[in-house]
Protein backbone atom coordinates (compact mmCIF):
# COMPACT_ATOMS: atom_id res chain seq x y z
CA UNK A 1 0.00 0.00 0.00
CA UNK A 2 1.15 3.46 -0.92
CA UNK A 3 1.94 5.77 1.99
CA UNK A 4 2.85 9.45 2.38
CA UNK A 5 6.55 8.69 2.19
CA UNK A 6 6.15 6.94 -1.19
CA UNK A 7 4.07 9.85 -2.37
CA UNK A 8 6.50 12.55 -1.26
CA UNK A 9 9.32 10.67 -2.96
CA UNK A 10 7.49 10.89 -6.27
CA UNK A 11 6.34 14.50 -6.01
CA UNK A 12 9.23 15.92 -8.03
CA UNK A 13 8.54 13.51 -10.86
CA UNK A 14 4.82 14.15 -10.62
CA UNK A 15 5.12 17.93 -10.92
CA UNK A 16 7.70 17.49 -13.70
CA UNK A 17 5.35 15.13 -15.58
CA UNK A 18 7.99 12.43 -15.61
CA UNK A 19 5.88 9.56 -14.29
CA UNK A 20 4.27 6.95 -16.53
CA UNK A 21 0.47 6.87 -16.74
CA UNK A 22 0.12 3.90 -14.34
CA UNK A 23 2.47 5.59 -11.85
CA UNK A 24 0.48 8.83 -12.04
CA UNK A 25 -2.65 6.87 -11.36
CA UNK A 26 -1.06 5.20 -8.36
CA UNK A 27 0.00 8.54 -6.87
CA UNK A 28 -3.45 9.98 -7.46
CA UNK A 29 -5.09 7.11 -5.62
CA UNK A 30 -3.09 8.22 -2.59
CA UNK A 31 -3.67 11.94 -3.21
CA UNK A 32 -7.41 11.40 -3.39
CA UNK A 33 -7.47 10.17 0.15
CA UNK A 34 -4.66 12.26 1.68
CA UNK A 35 -5.35 15.96 2.15
CA UNK A 36 -1.88 16.69 3.44
CA UNK A 37 -0.13 15.19 0.41
CA UNK A 38 -2.55 16.94 -1.91
CA UNK A 39 -1.63 20.27 -0.37
CA UNK A 40 2.04 19.38 -0.58
CA UNK A 41 1.60 18.52 -4.25
CA UNK A 42 -0.23 21.78 -5.03
CA UNK A 43 2.45 23.68 -3.19
CA UNK A 44 5.25 22.00 -5.17
CA UNK A 45 3.40 22.73 -8.38
CA UNK A 46 2.93 26.35 -7.32
CA UNK A 47 6.60 26.67 -6.53
CA UNK A 48 7.62 25.29 -9.92
CA UNK A 49 5.26 27.73 -11.63
CA UNK A 50 6.63 30.61 -9.54
CA UNK A 51 10.21 29.78 -10.55
CA UNK A 52 9.18 29.76 -14.19
CA UNK A 53 7.19 32.99 -14.23
CA UNK A 54 9.84 34.77 -12.19
CA UNK A 55 12.42 34.14 -14.88
CA UNK A 56 10.57 34.00 -18.14
CA UNK A 57 9.59 37.59 -18.73
CA UNK A 58 13.16 38.66 -19.40
CA UNK A 59 13.87 39.23 -23.06
CA UNK A 60 17.15 39.64 -24.87
CA UNK A 61 18.10 43.25 -25.68
CA UNK A 62 17.11 44.34 -29.21
CA UNK A 63 20.69 45.36 -30.01
CA UNK A 64 21.87 41.81 -29.31
CA UNK A 65 19.09 40.36 -31.44
CA UNK A 66 20.03 42.62 -34.35
CA UNK A 67 23.72 41.82 -34.05
CA UNK A 68 23.07 38.07 -34.04
CA UNK A 69 20.63 38.31 -36.92
CA UNK A 70 23.33 39.93 -39.04
CA UNK A 71 25.92 37.44 -37.90
CA UNK A 72 23.68 34.46 -38.72
CA UNK A 73 22.54 35.74 -42.06
CA UNK A 74 25.82 36.98 -43.46
Amino acid at each position, binding site marked *: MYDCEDCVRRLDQLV*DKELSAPEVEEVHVHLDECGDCT*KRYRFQEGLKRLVKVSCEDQRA*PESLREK*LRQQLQS
Partner: protein
Amino acid sequence: MAEQSAEQDFGTEAIGNLDALYRGALRLTRDPDKAQDLVQDTYARALRYQHSYQAGTNMKAWLFAIMRNLYWDRFQKANREAVSIDDIGEFALYDQMRDDLGEGPETEVLDRIARGEVVDSIEKLNPLHREVVLLVDVEGFSYKDAATILGVPIGTVMSRLHRARQQLQKDLFEYAVESGIVPGGLNKRS
Protein backbone atom coordinates in the same frame (compact mmCIF):
# COMPACT_ATOMS: atom_id res chain seq x y z
CA MET B 1 8.17 32.98 -53.15
CA ALA B 2 11.69 31.63 -53.23
CA GLU B 3 12.44 28.77 -50.89
CA GLN B 4 14.61 29.61 -47.94
CA SER B 5 18.06 28.10 -47.94
CA ALA B 6 19.06 25.65 -45.20
CA GLU B 7 21.35 28.33 -43.74
CA GLN B 8 18.49 30.79 -43.50
CA ASP B 9 16.29 28.19 -41.86
CA PHE B 10 19.03 27.48 -39.38
CA GLY B 11 19.47 31.17 -38.63
CA THR B 12 15.75 31.77 -38.17
CA GLU B 13 15.33 28.81 -35.85
CA ALA B 14 18.43 29.74 -33.88
CA ILE B 15 17.26 33.34 -33.39
CA GLY B 16 13.89 31.98 -32.27
CA ASN B 17 15.62 30.61 -29.18
CA LEU B 18 17.38 33.85 -28.30
CA ASP B 19 15.17 34.94 -25.39
CA ALA B 20 15.44 31.53 -23.73
CA LEU B 21 19.21 31.47 -24.15
CA TYR B 22 19.61 35.01 -22.87
CA ARG B 23 17.50 34.26 -19.77
CA GLY B 24 19.62 31.18 -19.20
CA ALA B 25 22.83 33.13 -19.64
CA LEU B 26 21.61 35.76 -17.17
CA ARG B 27 20.93 33.09 -14.55
CA LEU B 28 24.27 31.39 -15.14
CA THR B 29 26.51 34.46 -15.23
CA ARG B 30 24.35 36.73 -13.01
CA ASP B 31 25.61 39.67 -15.04
CA PRO B 32 23.90 41.24 -18.11
CA ASP B 33 27.17 42.07 -19.92
CA LYS B 34 28.63 38.62 -19.37
CA ALA B 35 25.29 37.12 -20.38
CA GLN B 36 25.37 38.98 -23.70
CA ASP B 37 28.94 37.83 -24.34
CA LEU B 38 28.06 34.25 -23.48
CA VAL B 39 25.06 34.29 -25.83
CA GLN B 40 27.08 35.83 -28.67
CA ASP B 41 29.79 33.21 -28.27
CA THR B 42 27.16 30.48 -28.15
CA TYR B 43 25.73 31.62 -31.48
CA ALA B 44 29.20 31.96 -32.99
CA ARG B 45 30.00 28.40 -31.98
CA ALA B 46 26.62 27.14 -33.17
CA LEU B 47 27.23 28.74 -36.55
CA ARG B 48 30.64 27.14 -36.77
CA TYR B 49 29.25 23.71 -35.96
CA GLN B 50 25.91 23.99 -37.69
CA HIS B 51 26.77 20.98 -39.89
CA SER B 52 26.66 18.86 -36.73
CA TYR B 53 23.10 19.95 -35.96
CA GLN B 54 20.49 17.66 -37.43
CA ALA B 55 17.54 19.63 -38.75
CA GLY B 56 14.30 18.65 -37.06
CA THR B 57 15.94 17.65 -33.77
CA ASN B 58 15.77 19.77 -30.63
CA MET B 59 17.68 22.94 -31.49
CA LYS B 60 16.95 24.58 -28.16
CA ALA B 61 18.57 21.66 -26.34
CA TRP B 62 21.53 21.72 -28.71
CA LEU B 63 22.06 25.47 -28.16
CA PHE B 64 21.75 25.10 -24.39
CA ALA B 65 24.35 22.32 -24.43
CA ILE B 66 26.77 24.59 -26.33
CA MET B 67 26.13 27.49 -23.96
CA ARG B 68 26.44 25.37 -20.86
CA ASN B 69 29.80 23.99 -22.00
CA LEU B 70 31.09 27.46 -22.85
CA TYR B 71 29.95 28.70 -19.46
CA TRP B 72 31.80 25.98 -17.59
CA ASP B 73 34.92 26.42 -19.72
CA ARG B 74 35.00 30.13 -19.21
CA PHE B 75 33.58 30.94 -15.82
CA GLN B 76 33.91 27.81 -13.78
CA LYS B 77 37.01 26.11 -15.13
CA ALA B 78 39.11 27.21 -12.18
CA ASN B 79 36.64 26.09 -9.56
CA ARG B 80 35.10 23.15 -11.34
CA GLU B 81 36.78 20.87 -8.88
CA ALA B 82 35.75 23.05 -5.98
CA VAL B 83 32.04 23.07 -6.75
CA SER B 84 30.58 20.56 -4.41
CA ILE B 85 27.03 19.96 -3.46
CA ASP B 86 26.32 20.33 0.20
CA ASP B 87 23.70 18.10 1.57
CA ILE B 88 21.35 20.35 3.47
CA GLY B 89 19.08 17.52 4.47
CA GLU B 90 15.41 17.39 3.66
CA PHE B 91 13.67 20.72 3.75
CA ALA B 92 10.12 21.26 2.62
CA LEU B 93 8.78 24.77 2.74
CA TYR B 94 5.25 23.47 2.88
CA ASP B 95 5.97 21.42 5.99
CA GLN B 96 7.72 24.37 7.63
CA MET B 97 4.78 26.62 7.03
CA ARG B 98 1.91 24.21 7.38
CA ASP B 99 0.89 25.63 10.74
CA ASP B 100 1.05 29.20 9.49
CA LEU B 101 -0.90 28.58 6.32
CA GLY B 102 -4.21 28.28 8.07
CA GLU B 103 -7.25 27.37 6.04
CA GLY B 104 -6.47 29.45 2.96
CA PRO B 105 -5.25 27.93 -0.28
CA GLU B 106 -1.79 26.50 0.34
CA THR B 107 -0.35 28.37 -2.62
CA GLU B 108 -1.46 31.77 -1.31
CA VAL B 109 1.85 32.36 0.41
CA LEU B 110 3.64 31.77 -2.91
CA ASP B 111 1.63 34.59 -4.48
CA ARG B 112 3.09 36.95 -1.90
CA ILE B 113 6.70 36.15 -2.68
CA ALA B 114 8.16 38.80 -4.99
CA ARG B 115 9.45 37.47 -8.29
CA GLY B 116 12.72 39.33 -7.87
CA GLU B 117 13.25 37.43 -4.65
CA VAL B 118 12.80 34.12 -6.46
CA VAL B 119 15.36 35.17 -9.07
CA ASP B 120 17.78 36.12 -6.27
CA SER B 121 17.28 32.76 -4.61
CA ILE B 122 17.93 30.92 -7.87
CA GLU B 123 21.09 32.95 -8.41
CA LYS B 124 22.30 32.06 -4.93
CA LEU B 125 22.21 28.36 -5.77
CA ASN B 126 25.52 26.77 -6.60
CA PRO B 127 26.02 26.50 -10.37
CA LEU B 128 25.33 22.76 -10.55
CA HIS B 129 21.97 23.31 -8.91
CA ARG B 130 21.22 26.51 -10.75
CA GLU B 131 21.64 25.01 -14.20
CA VAL B 132 19.31 22.10 -13.53
CA VAL B 133 16.55 24.40 -12.20
CA LEU B 134 17.04 26.57 -15.23
CA LEU B 135 16.70 23.66 -17.65
CA VAL B 136 13.82 21.77 -16.04
CA ASP B 137 11.76 24.44 -14.28
CA VAL B 138 12.31 27.53 -16.39
CA GLU B 139 12.81 26.03 -19.84
CA GLY B 140 10.71 22.92 -19.37
CA PHE B 141 13.24 20.37 -20.60
CA SER B 142 12.51 16.74 -19.77
CA TYR B 143 14.89 14.93 -17.39
CA LYS B 144 16.22 13.07 -20.42
CA ASP B 145 17.01 16.22 -22.40
CA ALA B 146 18.48 17.91 -19.32
CA ALA B 147 20.69 14.85 -18.78
CA THR B 148 21.91 15.03 -22.38
CA ILE B 149 22.61 18.76 -22.13
CA LEU B 150 24.51 18.35 -18.87
CA GLY B 151 26.23 15.11 -19.87
CA VAL B 152 25.13 13.29 -16.70
CA PRO B 153 22.79 10.34 -16.00
CA ILE B 154 19.08 11.03 -15.45
CA GLY B 155 19.43 10.00 -11.79
CA THR B 156 21.94 12.83 -11.31
CA VAL B 157 19.51 15.31 -12.82
CA MET B 158 16.84 14.10 -10.40
CA SER B 159 19.00 14.27 -7.30
CA ARG B 160 20.42 17.70 -8.18
CA LEU B 161 16.96 19.01 -8.95
CA HIS B 162 15.64 17.71 -5.66
CA ARG B 163 18.44 19.31 -3.69
CA ALA B 164 18.15 22.53 -5.65
CA ARG B 165 14.47 22.75 -4.78
CA GLN B 166 15.20 22.07 -1.13
CA GLN B 167 17.78 24.86 -1.08
CA LEU B 168 15.43 27.19 -2.90
CA GLN B 169 12.64 26.50 -0.42
CA LYS B 170 14.96 27.05 2.49
CA ASP B 171 16.06 30.37 1.10
CA LEU B 172 12.52 31.48 0.31
CA PHE B 173 11.41 30.46 3.77
CA GLU B 174 14.06 32.68 5.35
CA TYR B 175 12.86 35.50 3.13
CA ALA B 176 9.22 34.80 4.03
CA VAL B 177 10.05 35.02 7.72
CA GLU B 178 12.23 38.13 7.39
CA SER B 179 9.62 39.95 5.33
CA GLY B 180 6.78 38.97 7.62
CA ILE B 181 4.93 36.84 5.07
CA VAL B 182 4.93 34.09 7.65
CA PRO B 183 5.13 34.83 11.33
CA GLY B 184 7.76 33.60 13.75
CA GLY B 185 9.13 30.83 11.65
CA LEU B 186 12.13 28.86 12.77
CA ASN B 187 12.46 30.63 16.10
CA LYS B 188 9.01 29.49 17.00
CA ARG B 189 10.00 25.89 16.55
CA SER B 190 13.54 25.90 17.85
